[in-house]
């Protein structure tokens, strides 16, 4: 019968499609796992080496550490999030809840989308021209944090905007129909509902910021003065909290020692740093998933 042979063919196609798709996913997973295992594996010796994790980087001798770089990476991340989170939250709320459909809103959304795919080296060069040279801030944490903010802002705005837009319309209607203002509805009803997606997005973007090198090479600079955690003189280059000092991060460190490093243990330092970076980013991703799922569960049941 024609119909049964057609359905047999459909079933066969379905089988083939399932097989092909499974194979593609398997290849991708294997490749990714291989990269992670290789990077973490080749730097494994350094991962638990306290003198490497906290030590001073060396210019010419072997045995250098990445203490300042590790701190700088986290410090820049925190500053960047402090700058970009409120701004992108505001922009996303405006775009998702307040802006009327129209040419201006469409243009704004398009611009944000375009900016979120801007190559980070372009952001870095802009940061150098504007913050470092024009404003005369030099290679500094401030220049780097602002460059990273520019890099992060459009991505974060989109993530939050999409999270808000994914909240069903009827939640908005319910709030408004109870005589709540748009602001009350957004802050007390929509944001909590969107929280799992927002938190996941923020942590994932934090991973990208943490591993960013190109935007920082010419803004936060490529030198890491040794930090003295007892120094609270905000104008001193060894004060960790001084935002006007240059600050090389882990990712920039990898780039630098590989392109111009002369230390004898270059390969070991480089792969050790890469392993630390990788573990941090993996941790961000895992935390993002756990926190996102926790929040989700807290919101939908019990």
């Amino acid at each position, binding site marked *: 019968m024609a119909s049964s042979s057609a359905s047999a063919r459909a079933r066969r196609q379905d089988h083939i499609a399932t097989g092909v798709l499974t194979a593609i996913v398997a290849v991708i997973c294997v490749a990714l796992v291989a990269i992670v295992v290789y990077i973490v594996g080749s730097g494994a010796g350094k991962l638990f080496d306290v003198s490497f994790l906290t030590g001073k980087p060396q210019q010419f001798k072997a045995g250098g550490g990445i203490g300042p770089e590790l701190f700088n990476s986290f410090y820049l991340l925190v500053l960047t999030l402090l700058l970009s989170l409120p701004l992108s939250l505001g922009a996303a709320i405006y775009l998702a809840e307040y802006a009327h459909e129209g040419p201006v809103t469409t243009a704004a959304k398009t611009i944000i989308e375009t900016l979120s795919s801007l190559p980070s080296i372009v952001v870095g060069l802009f940061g150098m021209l504007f913050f470092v040279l024009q404003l005369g801030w030099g290679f500094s944490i401030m220049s780097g944090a602002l460059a990273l903010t520019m890099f992060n802002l459009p991505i974060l705005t989109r993530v939050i905007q999409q999270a808000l837009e994914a909240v069903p319309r009827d*939640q*908005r209607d319910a709030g408004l129909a109870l*005589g709540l203002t748009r602001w009350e509805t957004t802050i007390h009803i929509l944001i909590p509902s969107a929280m799992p997606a927002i938190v996941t997005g923020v942590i994932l973007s934090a991973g990208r910021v943490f591993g960013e090198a190109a935007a920082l090479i010419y803004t936060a600079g490529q030198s890491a003065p040794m930090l003295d955690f007892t120094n609270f003189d905000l104008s001193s280059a060894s004060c960790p909290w001084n935002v006007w000092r240059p600050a090389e991060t882990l990712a920039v460190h990898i780039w630098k020692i590989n392109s111009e490093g002369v230390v004898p243990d270059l390969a070991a330092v480089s792969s050790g740093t890469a392993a630390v970076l990788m573990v941090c980013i993996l941790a961000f991703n895992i935390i993002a998933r756990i926190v996102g799922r926790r929040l989700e569960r807290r919101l939908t049941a019990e």
Partner: protein
Amino acid sequence: MTPINQGPVSTRPATGEGDAADLRSVILETRDVTVTYGTHEALHPTSLAFAAGEVTSLIGPSGCGKSTYLRSINLMNREIEGCKVGGQVIYRGQDVNAPGVDLFELRKHIGMVFQQPNPFHKSIYENVAFAPRRHGITKKSDLDQLVEESLRAAAIWDEVKDKLSESGFALSGGQQQRLCIARTLAMHPDIVLMDEPCSALDPISTFAVEETIRSMASRGICTIIVTHNMEQAARVSDRCAFFLLGEMVETGVTAEMFANPSDQRLDDYLTGRFG
């Protein structure tokens, strides 16, 4: 200015029927209300009057403008871009579209229950207490009392009293809808608009909601309910309005209208010849 919910209630003979004994205290009236989406007039001039303690059902085939009409009463149409409302909606003697009327104050008195149950992502307690707290009731004991009273009024107290801190989403669909009704009743509204509140519910939950509607009416709340279920309209509503293609075709006492419809189109609709 007098608070909007303390305006006059006019007592006068019902429009339509000449029965002198049928005096109704009209709390809400629409005069030639029209609604336009862009250039499409989805609702042609509609005039209806609603009384306190009365349940009115809005019936008619899909797309005839029932929800559109309902949303023009609590001004939810303002939230839809490109939507324009004409004519007058008079709540306690005041045109709600007049400048100076506080939209948020108005919506406290005219509540709304939606087709899909839409509890907040909050605990059962917070679902009810949240809006009253935003509107200024902050004392814990007052809120506790309000929550219990509202949940009782929506006939769901016994089912949830031991799990008030659990999420509203952990309830069944029918319970969620009754929670949404409780949330609306917690505002002590004069008028409750319900847009097909039982369309996602099983017969038992539907029965519970209908009981709630009747008890709301006995406490003087004016309820306007959109329904596709003619038996439901017959069971719960005192009065009925039939819409067709954006036009309000016929209105009157439900029992009389269903027994002998004066408009042929209503007759056709009731006998299932279209719609």
